[in-house]
């Protein structure tokens, strides 16, 4: 069923090293990667973490969807089709849909995201990015109570207290600690590791927790209670003997430690956003960080996963005012997570077609949402085979941004970085080109004037 081309070992040419390459894996967006090329083939990488290295290697044949494909109705078999056919078919599906869902966007460039949002607008669809199942609750909390934030450069140079709450950077953002938070020497943190204190809060003693100076084992799903107690203790008020499985003494100790530091940073992940409380957990975390600024300097940064999920929120916001879960079905943008986010729409069967790009809801959405996806006309744009491509109607392969295509991405601290092109990929089209061709054809089908580049 799954066809991949065997890797062809080319005759060795002169090895070449491309420097200052940006890694398109996670929101840390490391920009010091070196890629070793043998002609147009990636042989190895330097400086990249284990996942980043794999991201570059995954560009090789053997891992790729070799050509556009269409699934034979009622089977798991796919028939090869041309790019022209796939783009025409995709345009027909979207032009005929009453309220198509556009989902993903987080592993592609801002340039492609911009075209995608326009496509959602002219088709009267809903567009949502992976924040919806990631840091969407963080975004909602930031809209409610604001967010004291800073860049990772400031963290490197100034922060002497690092708190990782409900995240495990050793596995998910492997170079975060070595580039920015714990190990590097900075302007005011000259002794690096020795000048900083690391606190990890997690229900599991994770591999990151094993590196911590202080590990706080919070009971699963009780982050809100613990943050509330920490906030109360910070104000010097009394708290119960045990909160969320953590002793009063440890909470008070943490509050006093935070006050004694010059610059504290709270990094948080899915352990807080996906668990009971969701945006309320982030709300109170931000409130605590805001309180802490009465005593010292304190900031927080969400550990954004996909390398350009931040960018997708940025592009959506500057184009239409909202960062995710955006609905154009009334002709103007509306935003109401719980109603217009991808999972809500799929679970209530409120879309009649779907386009998924640069993400894998098949692996990352509850199966009940994907049961509706499997019943409607669908288009998946992805360089690789995924559970999503396996149940989509049309599969359109594309180039990988940062490896085969240039493009802009936003780091987790909202800093835009231009990704480089390392190798050529003559057989695949870019996400941006595929979307632009679909957009132009949808305009024709709907009788709309051809739009210019804006």
């Amino acid at each position: 069923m799954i066809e991949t081309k065997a890797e062809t070992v080319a005759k060795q040419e002169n090895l070449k090293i491309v420097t200052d390459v940006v890694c398109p894996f996670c929101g840390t967006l490391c920009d010091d990667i070196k890629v070793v090329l043998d002609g147009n083939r990636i042989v190895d990488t330097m400086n990249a973490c284990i996942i980043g290295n794999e991201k570059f290697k995954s560009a090789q044949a053997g891992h790729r969807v070799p050509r556009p494909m269409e699934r034979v109705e009622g089977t798991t078999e796919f028939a090869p089709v041309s790019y022209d056919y796939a783009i025409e078919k995709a345009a027909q599906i979207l032009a005929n849909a009453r309220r198509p869902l556009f989902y993903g966007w987080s592993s592609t460039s801002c340039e492609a995201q911009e075209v995608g949002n326009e496509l959602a607008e002219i088709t009267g669809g809903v567009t949502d990015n992976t924040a919806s199942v990631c840091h969407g609750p963080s975004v909602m909390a930031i809209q409610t109570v604001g967010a004291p934030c800073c860049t990772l450069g400031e963290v490197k140079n100034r922060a002497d207290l690092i708190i990782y709450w409900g995240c495990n950077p050793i596995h998910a953002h492997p170079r975060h600690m070595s580039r920015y938070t714990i190990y590097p020497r900075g302007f005011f943190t000259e002794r690096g590791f020795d000048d900083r204190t690391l606190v990890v809060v997690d229900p599991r003693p994770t591999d990151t927790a094993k590196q911590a100076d202080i590990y706080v084992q919070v009971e699963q799903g009780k982050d809100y209670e613990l943050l509330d107690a920490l906030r109360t203790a910070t104000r010097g008020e009394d708290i119960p003997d045990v909160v969320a499985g953590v002793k009063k003494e440890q909470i008070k100790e943490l509050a006093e430690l935070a006050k004694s530091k010059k610059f504290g940073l709270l990094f948080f992940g899915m352990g807080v956003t996906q668990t009971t409380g969701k945006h309320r957990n982030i709300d109170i975390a931000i409130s605590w960080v805001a309180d802490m600024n009465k005593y010292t300097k304190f900031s927080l940064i969400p550990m954004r996963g996909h390398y350009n999920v931040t960018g997708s929120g940025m592009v959506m916001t500057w184009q239409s005012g909202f960062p995710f879960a955006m609905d154009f079905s009334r002709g103007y943008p509306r935003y109401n997570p719980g109603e217009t986010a991808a999972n809500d729409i799929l679970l209530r069967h409120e879309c009649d077609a779907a386009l998924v790009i640069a993400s894998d809801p098949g692996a990352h959405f509850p199966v009940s949402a994907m049961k509706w996806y499997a019943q409607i006309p669908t288009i998946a744009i992805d360089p690789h085979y995924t559970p999503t491509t396996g149940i989509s109607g049309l599969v359109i392969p594309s180039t990988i941004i940062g490896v085969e295509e240039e493009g802009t991405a936003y780091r987790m601290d909202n800093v835009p970085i231009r990704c480089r092109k390392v190798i050529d990929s003559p057989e695949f089209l870019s996400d941006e080109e595929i979307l632009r061709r679909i957009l132009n054809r949808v305009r024709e089908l709907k009788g709309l004037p051809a739009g210019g580049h804006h």
Partner: protein
Amino acid sequence: MQGVAIEGHKHEDEYIKACGICEVDVSDLKKLKVFPGQTVRVKSAYGEVVVRAVKATQGPHPGLVFIPMGPWANQVTSPNTYSTGMPHFKGVKVTIEPAPNEKVLNGIELLQKTTLDLKVNA
């Protein structure tokens, strides 16, 4: 490692090894009379899935099991978003029973089997 397996390996066995697993505390494995590496059936109010039980690597945490993000976990997670757009991925009550002779499906096959209305068994 999960992050490595998701980059271009989702159609391969590497993805099953990284994500088609359930990390269980050693004390719970003893109670279930399951050895690490054996297959178990994990059931929740939302569905069930067969995965391979492994010893908890980042533990101990008796009573708490962990399935990495992926199509296996999402057979049993709660789709309720409680007006946030975010399904309830964590803190889902599950039961576990030994499932000898059962196979852990490939991630793509698992989703195809549980979502597509297949006319023929491909």
